[in-house]
């Protein structure tokens, strides 16, 4: 692999990670902590939304994020022909 290509691969890798980590931050620290009081004004069947994110919702998103990451990285590895 040329140096150019290695750099491009790494750049795309980093941007994938940053995109996914921003979602990770928003659902946990955002919805579950920083904006919990604002979201708690919304209620679904008696459950306050901010409370739900902190105790259940964020966990679902975490699981989905990792599987999305795996898909994106597998595609990226093939695109740059560095897959195993």
């Amino acid at each position, binding site marked *: *692999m040329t140096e150019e290509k*290695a750099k491009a*691969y*790494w750049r795309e*890798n980093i941007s994938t*990670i940053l995109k*996914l*980590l921003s979602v*990770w931050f928003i659902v*946990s*620290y955002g919805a*579950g*902590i*920083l904006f*919990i*009081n604002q979201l*708690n004004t919304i209620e*679904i*069947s*008696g*459950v*306050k939304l*901010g*409370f*739900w994110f*902190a*105790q*259940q919702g*964020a*966990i*679902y998103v*975490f*699981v989905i*994020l*990792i*599987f999305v*990451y*795996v898909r994106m*990285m*597998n595609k990226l*590895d093939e695109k740059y022909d*560095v*897959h*195993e």
Partner: protein
Amino acid sequence: MDLQTLIYLFVGLSFALYIGIAIWAKAASTKDFYVAGGGVHPIANGMATAADWMSAASFISLAGLISYKGSDGGAYLMGWTGGYVLLALLLAPYLRKFGKFTVPDFIGDRYYSNVARTVAVVATIFVSFTYVAGQMRGVGIVFSRFLQVDVNTGVYIGMGIVFIYAVLGGMKGITYTQVAQYTVMIIAYLIPAIFLSLMVTDTFLPQLGIFATTTFDFNDGVKVIPQGTYLMHALDQSLADLGFKEYTQPGNLWNMFMLTVALMVGTAGLPHVIVRFFTVPRVKDARISAGYALLFIALLYTTVASVAAFSRVNTIDRIQNVEYKQWVTEGVKKSDGRENHGSWFRTWEKGSLLAWNDRNGDGKIQYAAGKAFDNAKGKPAFDGDKVAPDGHRLTTNALPAKGAKPFDNEVYIDRDIIVLANPEIANLPNWVIALIAAGGLAAALSTAAGLLLVISASISHDLLGKVIFNDPATGKSKLSEKSELMAARLAAVAAIIVAGYLGIHPPGFVAQVVAFAFGLAAASFFPAIILGIFDKRMNKAGAIAGISTGLIFTFGYIIYFVFMGGDKADYLWGIAPTGIGTLGMVLHFIVAYIVSRMTEPPPQHIQDLVESIRVPRGAGEAQAH
């Protein structure tokens, strides 16, 4: 069959299974011993990681903790799951490509320094022992409750079981045993949760149960909350009636933030979790394996919030205003005809984890906010085995001040018993209770085994093989494969003995030292590994300065405020010691960056190493040398 026979049967069968697997998967080489031969399927590895990660604390204590903390408990739920996202995206694939056996391996090689390697070994051993002491204690408690033996005997039995499969089987034995343990653990957690959910809300899935309505008129002792009220409304209402903070009311958000970061980053930095990703064949597998691990963990963790809420409602519903003597001997009927038997209350009273103080002398139990016993933490001091005429255990505590609203609290409940006692509180069938016993043991044993393995690998592989018996001419260990395997087994034996000792003579602060494990992992391993991968310019001087700063700062802060009685008012920016690892991590990053930019860049072969771990192809198998 009676309860005791069922417990022996369930626990006995599960143990026979673990030992059978351990014999089948006996380790033949150091590679089998350290990384299970590097050929574990990602799904199996995910299950093993989940079992390794979810300890007696997750299984036994977490729901109780959330039940007591309410909204703020979210820090633990997010913290102990969100770390896997960091692990999957930032650590696992690169460490797998690096392809060695342990975390000190990475630190020592990447920073071309045996000083860094030795610091990493010491931190690994410290963090792992902190953890394992709690696990052995957990094993002892579960044994003593369910097999009716002394706590210490329970610890000895646990040591024996772990000895068989950790010492013989190494990582290979442990990994496949953990797959079985995960299965036992998750079934044991979900079945009672489903029963509770059906009972309290008539909803099958506990995750959805918190969105449902109550199935009974809930008399909290102040007023009756009618059947059909949303569960969370009923819970908030009853706690407000009894003088507690509402369940869904958030507390100090700044501390919740810092604690969540420390737990997440600490999770991603714990050596016994990281080492898991060395056991799969390819980089691709390391990524997906983290996904499976979190999926299996989430199955339990998304149930916790519900179990916590159900049990709070259930406990209040069962104990409020019952007449003690009648309740614990024959049982009483609720006004709507539901059975309510208090024999569990007496069982746990015998174990000193529950206590009743009949302050108003009416012979009935009252539960509300406030202390039931005059003690700094409201804990009872039992007066030997003395009991009152109605049979409840007497204490030597003075009476606390009267006049609390709505009435004085008379009950002390140790929150660790919530999960273990709830099936009994809810009068669930005996086999469900027996299942919980097997599940609690699976949780404690699987984590203890994983930790002991990390300790033994650090000693035999990193300390003996790479530092003490290192041949400077070749850079390889002077120990033969066979003697290193023997050393690893001996180290595991020694680790089990020390862990057993700590389980029998717990340093009175097992709960507080957990903050240590996470704080130190967050402030030391996590930043050092991240910088090693993502910052090619990071060098030996920067890493050593960063690790030392992170460790000393975090260590010092916790020692000062937890063990030397530092005043809360002096907290730096109001950060509690449990969350200080976050600041330690930030300091580590800053110091490492500045020092590395002021010193020589790392040698060319290290820069090439970093280039190579960034690309998946050519991972090959985990290499010893």
